[in-house]
């Protein structure tokens, strides 16, 4: 047993401990904190699995932005914890435990009995890498070989934001999401929000740009930009935009819209939906990615800001 294996077992044990804590601890706030720590350590597991692109996404979106979302909800719902209803009966919990344990056991057995040699699509990805002019295999899969998935996922983001907005009350319809953050303009949070975002913008754009050839891409860069935007909002330096703003809506549909347009172009002039002409594959993919970066950053930020709660004037 070498040192890497020891490290892996320790990492898995801590992750498992945090998962148990997240489920078992009575206090919701502690469970949320436990889940954030879990998400960040799972990102380390992804690094150990040699999936750095996923690790970046997991740390930025799963651990970071998801953590902010859950913490915010837990803080707002803290008062309801006192009047919580009693849990399900012992029989229900016991059968749930048996069901969960047997499913976990079945999955574990499956993991141990996976076929050898394992099926893989990696050689196919390598064989077709020349078609896009990019060397990051994951970006190739996301943007070209399984571009349909990625486009539909943008549509899912759009549907989610429409769903969140539709929860606004009549008075706040089309207004500004979330509460107005009243931080001290001379305070240290405002200080960080003045200092950090410009550097965050450079990092976010770099992560997008380097995604063509190295781990990174529009999701990870968009998450960085979204968090910078949220920092400025939480420090009270800017307000959330009213959701009826035309500019905002234009940015939100820019990513999926451009993706769809390029896809239809492939149908008209090329061989199939989303078939990029080989000569322009890289510039086309890059322009889709730039539009996607803006869309993803705005969507993630607005999903975190929540449903409109105030009219645009206030």
């Amino acid at each position, binding site marked *: 047993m070498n040192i890497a294996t020891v490290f892996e077992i320790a990492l898995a044990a801590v992750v498992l401990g945090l998962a148990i804590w997240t489920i078992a601890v009575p206090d919701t706030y502690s469970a949320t904190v436990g889940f954030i720590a879990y998400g960040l350590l799972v990102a380390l597991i992804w690094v150990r699995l040699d999936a750095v692109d996923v690790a970046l996404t997991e740390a930025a979106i799963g651990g970071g932005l998801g953590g902010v979302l859950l913490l915010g909800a837990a803080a707002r719902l803290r008062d309801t914890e006192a009047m919580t209803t009693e849990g399900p009966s012992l029989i229900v919990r016991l059968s749930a435990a048996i069901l969960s344990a047997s499913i976990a056991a079945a999955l574990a057995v499956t993991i141990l009995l996976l076929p050898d040699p394992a099926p893989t699509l990696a050689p196919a990805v390598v064989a077709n890498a020349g078609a896009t002019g990019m060397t990051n295999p994951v970006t190739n899969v996301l943007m070209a070989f399984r571009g349909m998935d990625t486009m539909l996922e943008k549509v899912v983001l759009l549907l989610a934001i429409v769903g969140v907005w539709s929860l606004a009350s009549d008075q706040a319809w089309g207004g500004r999401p979330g509460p107005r953050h009243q931080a001290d303009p001379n*305070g240290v949070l405002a200080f960080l929000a003045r200092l950090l975002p*410009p*550097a965050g*913008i*450079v990092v*976010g754009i*770099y992560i997008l740009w380097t995604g063509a050839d190295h781990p990174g891409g529009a999701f990870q860069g968009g998450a960085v930009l979204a968090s910078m935007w949220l920092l400025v909002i939480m420090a*009270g330096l*800017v307000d959330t935009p009213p959701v009826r703003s035309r500019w905002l809506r234009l940015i939100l549909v820019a990513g999926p819209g451009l993706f769809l347009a390029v896809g239809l172009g492939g149908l008209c002039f090329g061989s199939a939906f989303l078939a990029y002409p080989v000569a322009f594959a890289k510039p086309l993919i890059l322009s889709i990615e730039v539009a996607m970066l803006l869309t993803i950053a705005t969507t993630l930020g607005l999903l975190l800001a929540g449903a409109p709660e105030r009219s645009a004037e206030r």
Partner: protein
Amino acid sequence: MTGSSGDRYGRAVVAVGGSWRTATLRAAFFLCLWLVLAGANPADIPAAAAAIAAATWTSLHLLEPSRSRRSIPAIVRLALLFLYQSVVAGVDVARRALDPRLPLRPGFVFYPTGLSRGVRRNVFTTLTSLLPGTVPTGEENGQLVYHCLDVEQPVVAELAAEEAALVRALYND
């Protein structure tokens, strides 16, 4: 992104003055950051230009240009002092944490600072949060409130020395 939809509605956004010098300096800083991240590669020029332009624009909107004179030797001295202090601070905390008797005399110390509220005071508290045995916990009646691990240490004198070094380096006006 940070600006396009939000800044028009903001309160604390300052007007962009004609401070080209500040803009150039900040753009140079962001260029350095880009070069550290991505390296020098001619193919990167469009992305680098977009990143630097967006970052500089945001930075000028978020943080007013400062008009005070800076002194490079004093900045270097401040940086060295800061490095030395953070080593002392870490060793101090480690010693206290590992000592079986747990030698702590925690308490609050009030420090009257000469720095104006806002960015200058924030820079000062951020630097001093890494001083040995002190954590800034906010302000009360115009004084900074520090929490100390050991109130018998000469905390106020150390803070005053740090403030003097900071003023010499950045706010010499």
